C-alpha cells in the first residue's frame, strides 16, 4: 500500500450567488488518482490554476474532496478523528514566508506545532533545538522573526514542520518569493530531508527544481497531463505540446 493514495479525487469550489444560494463554481481538480510511495521525492508542476495547490491542500485534509478519497498511511482525510494524526504526519510549508510564522520569536514559532500536539515541554525543547540545527538556524533561535531574510524565514517554517516529526512534507512553492541565494538554501534543505527518508512533495514552477525529484507530475486544468521520471518528462516535450494542443482544441 502506498503512503498516500488518491482515488478519483475531484474538488469543486462553490460560489455564493447574490441571492445567497450556492452555485457550483470551478472544478479545481477533476478526477485524479495517484499513489505516492514512502520516502519518494515527487514534484508537481503546471500552470497557474492547474490545481497544484488545491491538490497539496487535499493531502493533509486542509481541503476535503468533493468526491473521491485521499488516504494517508491508510487513514482517510474525511475521518474527523484521524485529522490531527494525518496533519502531524504530513507537514506543510507554504509560499509566503511571512504569513506562516505564528510567533515573534524564532524558537517559539518552531515550538508551535509540537505544542499543539500536546508533547511534554522537555521533549519539545529537544525537538525544537534539533529542528533548528538541522536547518542551520540554531544561532538565530532567539531572534525576532521579522529580522530574518526571506530564505531564513522559510527555513524557520521548514524547522516548524520537521519539529512535528512528520513522515511527509508538502512544499507549496516554497521558493517562489525568495532570492536566488535563499532559493538554493531551501532547495538544499529539501534534498537533505528527502535523503533522510521523509516523503517529499514539491510544488514548483521552476523546472530546475522539479528536475531534482524522482518523479514529476505535470498538471493541466485539474488533470494529470504527464507523470514520470524527469528524464521521461523532459524527453517528451514534443508529445506534450501535441497533448496541450489536443486539450485546447477540445
Amino acid at each position, binding site marked *: 500500500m502506498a503512503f498516500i493514495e488518491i482515488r478519483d479525487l475531484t474538488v469543486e469550489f462553490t460560489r455564493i450567488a447574490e441571492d445567497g444560494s450556492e452555485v457550483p463554481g470551478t472544478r479545481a481538480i477533476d478526477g485524479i488518482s495517484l499513489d505516492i510511495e514512502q520516502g519518494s521525492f515527487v514534484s508537481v508542476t503546471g500552470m497557474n490554476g492547474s490545481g497544484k495547490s488545491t491538490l497539496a*491542500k487535499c493531502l*493533509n485534509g*486542509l481541503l476535503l474532496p468533493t468526491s473521491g478519497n485521499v488516504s494517508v498511511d491508510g487513514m482517510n482525510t474525511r475521518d474527523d478523528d484521524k485529522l*490531527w494524526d494525518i*496533519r*502531524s504526519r504530513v*507537514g*506543510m510549508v*507554504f509560499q*509566503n514566508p*511571512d*504569513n*506562516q*510564522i*505564528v*510567533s*515573534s*520569536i524564532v*524558537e*517559539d514559532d518552531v*515550538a*508551535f*506545532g*509540537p*505544542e*499543539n*500536539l*500536546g*508533547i*511534554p*515541554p522537555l521533549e*519539545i*525543547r529537544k525537538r*525544537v533545538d534539533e529542528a533548528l540545527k538541522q536547518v542551520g538556524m540554531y544561532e538565530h533561535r*532567539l531572534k*525576532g*522573526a*521579522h529580522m530574518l531574510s526571506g530564505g531564513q524565514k522559510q527555513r524557520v517554517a521548514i524547522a*516548524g*514542520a520537521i519539529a*512535528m516529526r512528520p513522515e511527509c512534507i508538502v512544499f507549496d512553492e516554497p521558493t517562489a518569493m525568495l532570492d536566488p541565494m535563499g532559493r538554493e538554501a531551501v532547495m538544499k534543505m529539501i534534498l537533505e530531508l528527502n535523503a533522510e527518508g521523509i516523503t517529499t512533495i514539491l510544488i514548483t514552477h521552476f523546472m530546475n527544481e522539479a528536475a531534482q525529484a524522482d518523479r514529476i507530475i505535470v498538471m493541466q486544468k485539474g488533470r494529470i497531463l504527464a507523470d514520470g521520471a524527469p528524464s521521461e518528462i523532459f524527453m517528451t516535450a514534443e508529445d506534450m505540446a501535441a497533448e496541450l494542443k489536443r486539450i485546447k482544441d477540445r
Partner: protein
Amino acid sequence: MIRDITLGQYYPGNSVIHRLDARTKIIATLLYIIELFIVNNFWGFLIAGAALAAVIALSRVPARFIFRGLTAVFLIIAFTVILNLFMVDGRVLWQWKFLKITYEGIWRAAFMGVRLVLLIIGTSMMTLTTKPVELTDGLEKLMSPLNKIGVPSHEIALMMTIALRFIPTLMEETDKIIKAQQARGADFESGNLFQRAAKLIPILIPLFISSFRIAQELALAMEARCYHGGKGRTRMNEIHFHRGDAIAAVLMVIYLAVIIASRFITFNPF
C-alpha cells in the same frame, strides 16, 4: 518614526529581571502604575524613579534603548505638559492676552510630565524584559480563573501573540502600498488636515484587504500545524514561580508601603 517605538519590543537578555516569571512582572507593572497615581508629591516620584533605576540597572537593558522609546511618545508628553502649563489657574507669573503661566501651572506640568515619563518607562521595562510569548502566556494564566465566567483566556492570549507578531509585517505592507500609490502619482503631502485624511483611504482599503488575505493564509498554516484550540496544548517553556519571584513580591510590598508613606512627607522646598 514608527520603527523607533521600543514600547512593546523585547530586548533579549538573561538578567535577574528577564528571568522573573511573566506573571510577577505583569502584576508588578500594574502595581507600579497604580502607585504612580497614589504619589502626590515629588518625594514619591524620587522614590519611584530610584526604584525604576534599580530595575533598569538589574535588567542590563541599555538606557539608550529605553529612552529611544520615549522619543516616539515625546509629542504626547509635550502636549500634556504644555496643556497643564497654560490651563492651571493660580498665582500669575506671566501673561499675554489669554495665555498665562502660573506657579501652580508649572508645578502641575512638571508633575504630570514626570508621571508620564515614569509610566512609559515603567511599562516598557515589562515588555523589554519579557518575551512576547511569555507575556501572553502569563496573561493567559492570570486570566484563566475567568474561564469559568466564559472569558476565553487562551484565545485572547493567542490574539495578542499574533497581533505582536504581525505589527512589523503590516508596517512593511503599509510601506509597500504607500510606495505603490506614490508611484502612481498619489500625493499625501499637500492639502489641509481633512484632505490629507481623505487621501489615506487609498492606503487603508488595500491594507484592510491584504490583512484579510494574510489572516486567511495564517489560519491555514496554523491548521496545517495541528492547531485546534487551547485544549490539550502544552508549552515549551512552562512558566514557574522561582525564588526570585518571592523576593520580588516582598520588595513590591515594601515599595507599596514606602510610596503610601511618601504621601505624608510635607517638607516642600519649592
